[in-house]
């Protein structure tokens, strides 16, 4: 890559202590991600893909090596509010209406009331929840809750979006719809955030990403990086494109090769 990377891993290892000796979750991972890229992290469970994401987001510290985000430490990037995070569960606060949940980061960052309300409402409309702004989280379905979580992550226009299997708990139909919505929101954002999307679904990774980073099982290493040269904007038909199937096969075989 010719451009300066926004996220840079330099021989990063992560070792967890455990009762039966230390477990190496990641071993000497080096990786460069460009600004505005959509990266999917995929690999078998326990390969450290979530750990990799969490190292970027300063939710965990590397045991060795360095992670740089916008030429800063992840800790500094977090303090500069560079991250919007979407977890596997929506993590909406039960006592706040959907609108107030989306406003939460803006509230913490000291935006004036009027401005944060307008911002939250426009994001809720963007994710199709305009009519549900005054509902409480438990009144919405799982898919709607996750949409609200995405709106919340985008509310303060962070430059990096960290998504940890955000659609993992949803049914297939909702999941495919949300994938499309996510792509269109991402494409419309200016500037486009860099997205790190952790998934264990091969079609999801290929459909969404510019590059699919395949991680090997324990200890996690970057096994291969597969460029997804499917045209954007991607649509429902993309999933029927022969190139889509070729890429699926490529990722699948890469994952299978590691098992043997």
């Amino acid at each position, binding site marked *: 890559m010719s451009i300066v990377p926004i996220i840079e891993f330099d021989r990063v290892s992560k070792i967890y202590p455990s009762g039966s000796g230390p477990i190496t979750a990641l071993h000497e991972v080096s990786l460069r991600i460009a600004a505005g890229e959509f990266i999917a992290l995929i690999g078998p469970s326990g390969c450290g893909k979530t750990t990799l994401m969490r190292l970027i*987001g*300063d*939710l965990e510290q590397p045991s060795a090596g360095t992670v740089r985000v916008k030429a800063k430490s992840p800790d500094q990037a*977090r*303090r500069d*509010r560079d*991250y*919007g*995070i979407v*977890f596997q*569960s929506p*993590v909406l*606060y*039960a*006592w*706040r*209406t959907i609108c107030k949940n989306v406003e*939460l*980061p803006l*509230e*913490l*960052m000291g935006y004036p009331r009027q401005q944060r309300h307008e911002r939250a409402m426009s994001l809720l409309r963007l994710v199709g929840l305009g009519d*549900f702004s*005054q*509902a*409480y989280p*438990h*009144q*919405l*379905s799982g898919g*709607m809750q996750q949409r609200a979580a995405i709106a919340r992550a985008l509310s303060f226009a962070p430059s990096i979006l960290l998504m940890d299997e955000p659609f993992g708990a949803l049914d297939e139909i909702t999941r495919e719809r949300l994938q499309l919505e996510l792509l269109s929101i991402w494409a419309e954002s200016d500037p486009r955030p860099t997205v790190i999307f952790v998934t264990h679904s091969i079609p999801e990774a290929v459909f969404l990403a510019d590059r699919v980073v395949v991680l090997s099982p324990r200890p996690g290493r970057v096994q291969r990086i597969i460029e997804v040269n499917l045209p954007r904007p991607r649509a429902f038909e993309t999933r029927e494109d022969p190139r889509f199937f070729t890429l699926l096969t490529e990722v699948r075989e890469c994952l299978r090769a590691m098992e043997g």
Partner: protein
Amino acid sequence: MTIPQPLDQPGRRADWWRAIWPAVLTFTLGIGLWEGVVGFFALPLYLLPAPSQILLTFLAQPGYLLSIGAVTFGNAFAGCVLGCGLGVLTAIICVRWPIIAEGLVPLAVAASAVPIIALSPLMSLWLGSISPASKIAVVAVMTFFPTLVSVYKGLISPRADALQLMHSYAAAQRAIFLKLRVPAALPFFFNALRVCTTLSMIGAVVAEFFGGPQNALGVYIKSQAGVLRTREAWSAILVACLYGLAFYVVVVLIERVVMPWNKHR
């Protein structure tokens, strides 16, 4: 899709009635059974008066009974505010300094299971049997431990991801406390408070059994029962129930206003 329901929709009254009629029926049947048993076996008045007789006794001097009830309720209320307040404060300290929690919370859990009411005679000894201080102290000690345990549990109830979300926004400790821990602890606090309303009325009445001014429910019940004026004792018990219920209902109403998100659950 679940659409949030408007608060005042037709049929809400019917729902409400459907929810309470089994309890109303049971209550009516219970009172009827009591009335019937007393009449059928012609139980002597000093043993068990019928509900109707208790009600008549109450109606003979409602002003007096309610006024002595107010004295006892005052002690219960003061003790409850003191005990719950200190419980909340201690829970906050426990969350701020976990080392204190490690020492204190297991003890508080144990103390919640102990009949603290047994302290009543000692409190009378230490703080004076006539003064309200000994009654308030009993109630305060009774309500302190369950509040501490509940509120502490509530304050530490937010899951890891809810806290990490705050972390990712670089939220200050103060903001994490006020915008995450406190609201998460509210349901726990109100659960404790509801239990404490009942506990505090029990505590205040029983504490008065060990001495107190003449114009207090516990003293009245004990002295009337002592001379076999059972109807009078029962009418005072009725007043204790009324105050206890009213206290409980007020807490439930406050809870509904403070936690609107819980309404539809």
